[in-house]
């Protein structure tokens, strides 16, 4: 099975809607950069972090976990059977992390100082660790994607107009890379998995320092472990989710052989996550806070329910064999992990002086949706230009 560029037109009605959403987000972004965070967001001194950190950054990193889980499966454990999922997962991770970095740039007040952590270190800070790991991992992801670029453009660099003079040097670079990369790529791949393990867990450590400001349903010293486990758990469902959407969007037959065996690995991982999540609740004696049945309790129940239902669905062979059921179950896992990140960063953050509850503004939501739309648009462009998706089972409908 060999990956090749998807032969489809770029513009469709769906794409037009995505473009409008992206432009809407960009408009609010412009206001943020001209007038400051206060002009667009509902953030204030009581709620310094909101939707952008909770969803764009924290959930974004979690949902890009397909990159390192698939790399671990295919490259480290050498399960060639799953080879076809590596490139799409890699592309998602690469674009996902690019947008995480972008979202960080948008959210931090002095965006022009984003490079400061590179030279100003604070080893005690969980955020410093996350920042450094994400920066390095993003670089590693781009390196991992280079073979795709080489495959597509080596001997074929053909820039238009004045850029023509760059054709030869660029081609030379690709050829040099092509000689060096295959021998060293394994270093980057393992490094990528290690970096992911580190920052996925450190994202959980982030909120530990908030201490008593965090609701006891979520505040636990094993937050980093829970974040890591949930990231691993959402990796394969995310790959399945995207693959099914892509095959529908590009009118191809879903790769059920691969997706089913991927799906059959999800239940055990979810079981481990659930065991730690629920076990921790009882060990810390925090179950009483569920029985209060307030907003926080309901959000916690919702988050747990999504994962439990998904777990039960993934247990059955019927789910794993049907594209529709597989899609539903995967979506539930994704929703559960997304809600978990929202809960940890927004709902659980409940400081002592809290005159009014934080609800994201229209501008914040617009930017978040706009970013996701832009990500999908770029993904579509990349799979049309580069050999990312394997099309053994192309079924042209027209």
């Amino acid at each position, binding site marked *: 099975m060999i990956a090749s560029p998807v032969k489809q037109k770029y513009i469709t009605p769906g794409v037009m809607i995505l473009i409008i959403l992206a432009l809407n987000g960009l408009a609010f972004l412009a206001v943020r950069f001209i007038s400051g965070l206060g*002009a667009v967001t509902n953030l204030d*001194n009581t709620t310094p972090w909101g939707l952008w950190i909770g969803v764009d950054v924290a959930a974004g990193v979690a949902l890009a976990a397909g990159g390192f889980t698939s790399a671990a499966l295919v490259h480290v454990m050498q399960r060639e059977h799953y080879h076809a999922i590596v490139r799409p997962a890699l592309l998602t991770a690469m674009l996902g992390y690019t947008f995480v970095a972008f979202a960080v740039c948008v959210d931090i007040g002095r965006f022009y100082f984003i490079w400061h952590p590179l030279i100003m270190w604070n080893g005690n800070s969980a955020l410093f660790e996350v920042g450094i790991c994400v920066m390095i991992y993003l670089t590693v992801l781009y390196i991992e994607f280079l073979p795709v670029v080489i495959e597509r453009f080596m001997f074929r660099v053909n820039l238009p107009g004045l850029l023509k003079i760059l054709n030869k040097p660029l081609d030379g670079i690709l050829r040099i890379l092509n000689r060096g990369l295959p021998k060293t790529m394994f270093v980057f791949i393992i490094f990528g998995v290690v970096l992911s393990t580190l920052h996925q867990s450190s994202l959980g*450590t982030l909120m530990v320092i908030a201490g008593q400001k965090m609701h006891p349903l979520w505040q636990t010293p094993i937050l980093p472990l829970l974040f890591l486990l949930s990231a691993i758990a959402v990796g394969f469902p995310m790959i399945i989710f995207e693959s099914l959407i892509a095959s529908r969007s590009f009118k191809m037959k879903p790769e059920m052989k691969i997706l089913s065996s991927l799906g059959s690995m999800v239940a055990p991982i979810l079981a481990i996550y659930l065991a730690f999540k629920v076990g921790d609740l009882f060990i810390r004696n925090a179950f009483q806070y569920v029985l209060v049945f307030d907003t926080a309790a309901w959000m916690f129940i919702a988050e747990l329910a999504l994962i439990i239902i998904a777990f039960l669905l993934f247990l059955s062979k019927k789910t794993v064999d049907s594209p529709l059921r597989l899609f539903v179950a995967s979506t539930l896992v994704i929703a559960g992990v997304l809600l978990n990140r929202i809960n940890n960063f927004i709902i659980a953050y409940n400081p002592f002086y809290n005159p009014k509850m934080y609800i994201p503004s229209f501008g914040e939501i617009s930017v978040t949706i706009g970013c996701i739309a832009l990500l999908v648009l770029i993904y579509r462009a990349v799979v049309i230009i580069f050999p990312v998706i394997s099309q053994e089972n192309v079924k042209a409908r027209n």
Partner: protein
Amino acid sequence: MKNLNRRDFFKTTAFGVALATLGAKSAKASDKMLSEDRIGVLVDTAVCVGCRHCEWACKVAHNIPTTDLDTYSDNTVFKEYRRPEQTALTVVNEFENEKNSLLPIQVKTQCMHCERPACVSACIVGALTKEEDGSIIWNDDKCIGCRYCMVACQFQIPTYDYDRSIDPHIRKCDFCHDRRKEGQLPACVNICPNEALLFGKRSEVLRVAKNRIKRKSDVYVNHIYGEQEVGGTSWIYIASKNFDKLKMPTLVKNPAPGISESIQHGIFAYFIPPVTLYALLRTIMWVSTRHKDKNSENLSDIHKDEKGEES
């Protein structure tokens, strides 16, 4: 990637060891010793009359625009509970006194200058530092505006400039670092007409606080707020009313950064865990590759056999 061999394996391990030595170096740099003579302020809320002169003096000392001192006698501001903000690094709030309704209790709020500050531990670039004398100051040249200090602070003190796109500041009480360098008292302490603010060594003001509570046990509740809260603070309070009734958070004795830092240093103990993980993954990869190669050799053997039988 298919021709992995033992030499590659050792190459990668060496790479890890190099990283480990780097990590060992960077892990030590952060701990600064606190001076035995570190400073503190005792806020005696039973003595404070709520004149708010400290609010005015603080603004003057920090170049924050303010109205004349006379306007600060306006008591209507007490109707609403106020928090420190960009334009007011300290604020005074008023609370009812059940023992004597004519003498309401006023409580000044500003950065507590924690002994084990969460903001300093959290700051991604080390823009917030705990000085030897106990004060915590913010470095304009480093801050990236991520607001993690605000997430970390148990007293919700740092404030952010939400209305500026370029050069927004994190602002909080800096214990008048600049004034003290010139031998002056902090502006608020200096102006306080009633000596409700007592400045000195932390150990000294703590002793005074204990004496006052002992001497007037009918007036004060037996609790020095800040003596032990989140590991202790430089600013300490005594009051005639329980502190939770004065809108001061009830906090544990453990320093806020404690757990977070132990996790952080656990994961990164001299880079041993990450390097071990790397080595482990490398080993799995090596074994899996060999296993797979063997399998495919076996497969081709079978093919040969079959062909042999055919011919």
